[in-house]
């Protein structure tokens, strides 16, 4: 086990898969000469060359569209979108093409495609560059949506994603790139579409993913001192959504809090809460509680922005309310 950053974990996954399979290549804005705007692909251009590390124009539809076409020829492109906010410029290709082609042509077309992109707020980038629109993408059958919250999961999930023959949106979080975590040595894969218990507990189930995982874990450590033992279930993939560990946990704790960075309306929490009500209503001792971003476009001002994004204190408060 080595302790490495999320950035290093993602970079390792890419590097290892490119070494393993000559059909894997990277394309996107500033992935090559620049070394990646978040330095994830630093050194790749020098090592793998411009054929396999392709700088593109700033044209997201062209990036995703070209990745789709190349995937159809049997290659395994990993397209990078500089932020998930720019994915809207490629929305048509993600949801109308990538998510549909296999089904719509009766299974003929196969797309081994990964689109990597960081999302999330908290960096004073203003309303257009700070969004967490994960739920929108998870809405579409045909697309898989993965969003890891630890370096170990990021590495194992990305390697699985690259080897899979489906279009996958791999959502990273820009504020987690520096976060360190234990990563197993050597080759390993984490299956896509499997939630996992990141922290066992007995009083309340906390369901979360991505950036809100470390935020929630911090809250749990604090709550433990008050004698509240929280079980944390990390979704890891939003589609397919694996509810089994969530339901199993709720049947044990009889209480649930869902923590997400995105807006509450029509969000991940809304979906998870509905499924808990549908499948474990009789097990609940209290209404399900949601912690989510306040319903505003994120402002630039540091204090205002922070007040709109769930913080550790918000999670602590919500858990206390549910266990009372």
């Amino acid at each position, binding site marked *: 086990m080595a302790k490495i950053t999320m950035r290093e974990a993602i970079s390792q996954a890419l590097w290892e898969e490119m070494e393993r399979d000559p059909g894997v290549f990277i394309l996107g804005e500033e992935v090559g000469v620049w070394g990646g705007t978040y330095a994830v692909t630093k050194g790749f251009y020098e090592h793998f060359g411009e054929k396999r590390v392709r700088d593109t124009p700033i044209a997201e539809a062209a990036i995703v*569209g070209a990745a*789709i076409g190349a995937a*159809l*020829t*049997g290659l395994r492109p990993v397209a990078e979108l500089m932020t998930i906010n720019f994915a809207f410029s490629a929305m048509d*290709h993600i949801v109308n093409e990538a998510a549909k082609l296999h*089904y*719509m042509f009766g299974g003929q077309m196969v797309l081994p495609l990964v689109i990597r992109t960081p999302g999330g707020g908290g960096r004073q980038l203003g309303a257009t560059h700070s969004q967490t629109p994960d739920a929108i993408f998870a809405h579409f059958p045909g697309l898989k949506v993965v969003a890891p919250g630890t370096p170990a999961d990021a590495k194992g999930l990305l390697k699985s994603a690259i080897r899979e023959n*489906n279009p996958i949106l791999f959502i990273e979080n820009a504020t987690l790139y520096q976060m360190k975590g234990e990563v197993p040595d050597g080759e390993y894969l984490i299956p896509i579409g499997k939630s996992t218990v990141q922290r066992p507990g007995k009083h309340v189930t906390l369901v979360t993913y991505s950036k809100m995982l470390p935020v929630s874990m911090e809250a749990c450590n604090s709550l433990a001192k008050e004698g509240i033992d929280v079980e944390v279930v990390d979704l890891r993939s939003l589609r397919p959504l694996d509810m089994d560990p969530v339901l199993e946990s709720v049947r044990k704790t009889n209480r649930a809090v869902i923590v997400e960075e995105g807006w509450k309306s029509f969000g991940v929490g809304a979906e998870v809460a509905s499924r808990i009500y549908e499948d474990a209503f009789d097990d609940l001792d209290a209404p399900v509680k949601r912690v989510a971003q306040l319903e505003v476009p994120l402002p630039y001002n540091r204090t205002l922005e922070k007040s709109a994004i769930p913080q550790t204190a918000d999670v602590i408060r919500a858990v206390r309310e549910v266990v009372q």
Partner: protein
Amino acid sequence: MDKKKQVDLFMQMVLIRLLEERAAELYQDGKIGGFLHLYIGQEAVSTGLVAARQPVDRVITAYRDHGVALNCGIEPKVIMAELLGKATGTSKGKGGSMHMADVSKNFWGGHAIVGAHLPIAAGLALGDLYQDNKAVTVCMMGDGATNIGYFHEALNLSKVWNLPVLWVVENNQYGMGTSIERASAISMMCKKAYGYGIKTQRTDGMDVVSVQKEAERLFDEIRNGSGPQLLEAITYRFRGHSMGDPERYRKSDEVHQWQENDPIGIYRRYLIDNDIATAAELDALEDKAGVEIDAAVEFAESSPEPAADELFKDIYVEETGEVNHG
């Protein structure tokens, strides 16, 4: 091109014409649902282009795709079955008129969002360049597609990466019901490629010989590393944009004038004048095509509906590992 192949092009165009006419009837009978965009009048464009390709070359087009599908080697009965939503159709009845494909014949669809298939075409060409396949991707689009952003992103990328792609604008004068003069800043579609340093060519899209000749030269140049090129084919659709088009945007005189330039009539005269076929031989082919389309309709009508469990099939690929497109 040998005589047999020349006569075969005539047969293909007649088959498209008859298939489309029958499709229109079946649509009016309520047997075909959704939208139906007919290729009547434009047969020479796709027929000439596809005749010029080699099997390794990929074809991709927009939603007016039945004719292209036929030219690529999909049997009329399989096209008809897809139109009727049957399990035996090109896409197992799940694609419909606008979403036909046969990957084994290097026909990559059938894409119904205007212009969205252009970046995908660039990607197909990138895949061939990357794998050193010596293949060309031919991407057909309507004139309307030149006004959407995808056109510009895709053309730019194709030139930046020197991709082996032939862009073909089928200029049928109207994007739905809006004439090119009312929708496009310039009327010569090919000029739009100048800004990307892409070589262009215009051709008479009602003349299959002209289209085929130009396309052969362009395929050859692109295969030998010229980078992307653009061909504008001047053509006309004799029917509305889709079934149910009230056609308030054009006068019947204009339609009749173009109909005198019927691509099938032009080619028929060419074959006779050049002693490639006799009128009697061509008449016999038309009869044969009629029989084939009758059989296609019969096949489609008697084919089974997709099974109920087909609904949940092919949303995802279950297995990982090597992709083999056959």
